[in-house]
């Protein structure tokens, strides 16, 4: 199973990937990064911070524009990809393996995922 078959996406271009330990990895879709172009700046929250679904939790800038990144589901940050903050251009190569943003412990209801889209549906929606 490829990674895009395992993720769920928001219409605002974030994805979540469920890990074996019950945490979720949160990132940006390849489509989003392609639209942004050269990524030059990334700001991520600190571990321990909690966010509700829909909250802006991170900021990203490409040469072209600045964008906010929103929580696909509610959760507490358990891990932050600090290497990515150092070299945000990695996102242009890989958004799933090296380019993940944060890991979270979900704090909301499972129904929060009802409006998330499978990757293929997401692609259809945005393209």
């Amino acid at each position, binding site marked *: 199973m490829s990674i895009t078959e395992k993720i769920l996406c928001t219409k605002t271009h974030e994805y979540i990937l469920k890990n074996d330990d019950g945490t979720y990895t949160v990132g940006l879709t390849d489509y989003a990064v392609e639209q942004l*172009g*050269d990524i*030059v*700046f990334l*700001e991520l929250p600190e571990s321990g911070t909690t966010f509700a679904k829909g909250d802006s939790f991170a900021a990203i*800038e490409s*040469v072209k*524009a600045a964008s906010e990144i929103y929580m696909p589901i509610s959760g507490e940050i358990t891990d932050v990809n600090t290497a990515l903050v150092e070299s945000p251009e990695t996102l242009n190569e890989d958004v799933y393996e090296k380019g993940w943003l944060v890991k979270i412990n979900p704090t909301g209801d499972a129904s929060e995922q009802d409006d998330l889209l499978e990757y293929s549906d997401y692609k259809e929606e945005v393209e």
Partner: protein
Amino acid sequence: MTKETFLHDKHIALGAKMVDFAGWHMPVQYTTIVEEHNTVREAVGLFDVSHMGEVFVSGKESLAFLQSIVPQDISKLEYEKAVYCQLPNKKGGLIDDLIIYKIGINSYLIICNASRIDEDVNWMSLNSNGYDVKIDNQSHNYSLLAVQGPKADELLRTMGLSTHQDSFTIKPAKILDYNILVSRTGYTGEDGYELLVENNIAPALWDKVLEYGKPFGIKPIGLGARDTLRLEAALHLYGNDLDEDTTPVEAGLSWSLAKDKKEDYNGKEVIMAQLANGGNKKLVGIKMLDKNIARHGYEVYFNGEKVGIVTSGCISPVLGCNIALAYVKNISDISTGSVVQVMIREKLHDAEVVKKPFINKRNKIRN
């Protein structure tokens, strides 16, 4: 309805990412903005700027008419030369900035911003009452290709451009088999040319420039790199850094103004008073001291007080830091070397006021 230039199919075929800009469907990038930016700084790039406006002004009183609408002294403009001008309203605020070319006796070409063609033509028509002058908007009939970069001259030589042309001159020339109005101007801070042609010639000329440019490392360049290139050179973008509430003095364009022009022109009183006493605000260049980028509309603070607003900002691929233009209160405390703060995502980030342009013409780092 978005408009397309005669090179639209070329952009699509080259795989450009397209965006709407000033009512036009234009390429923002073909590869990446940074790669395209560096190509223009190091070699040569080709731009489609056909969206820009071409307005011809002719007639017995065209000089007197132009003298009445721009703060520059057009009587000093020689045949086949160009001058950077502004089009002020009655209060000295800018309706547009332009390049005026003298292309004949009583005959001038004005190249203006795509987003302002209608406003410019309306304003000129309104102001032409009583003058024996013809204002002919030919924007829809012309395409404009910009060839920019240190290798632009050499490239055009291999294509058959035979006569030498100084910067800010315009001459009709035959390149390959095409009749072209060749202008040694641009909007990148690099040496380069702008080639004005009739629409039907544009697609073939585009292909030829790319073909002949191959040995020089030419690449097509989108509007994304056009923006970062012009900002490194601290060239103003209308709508960002210039508007109807900003005078040329405030915009740091005093160098371009005629100081002793006798004729009256729109906004003269305000502009001359500001030239003597300074404007209400001033445009400064700033360099971010961290990795954040100051974008259009962000607030600027000095000693805890809000003093202004960022009008353009981006990364500088040449300098490796983030740069911006901002309007701040016209106080002497804010000058080169001062540290100001930019509000980015509800936090203040330090930036240093630096000299403009951010880089000088020969690519050497100034700051």
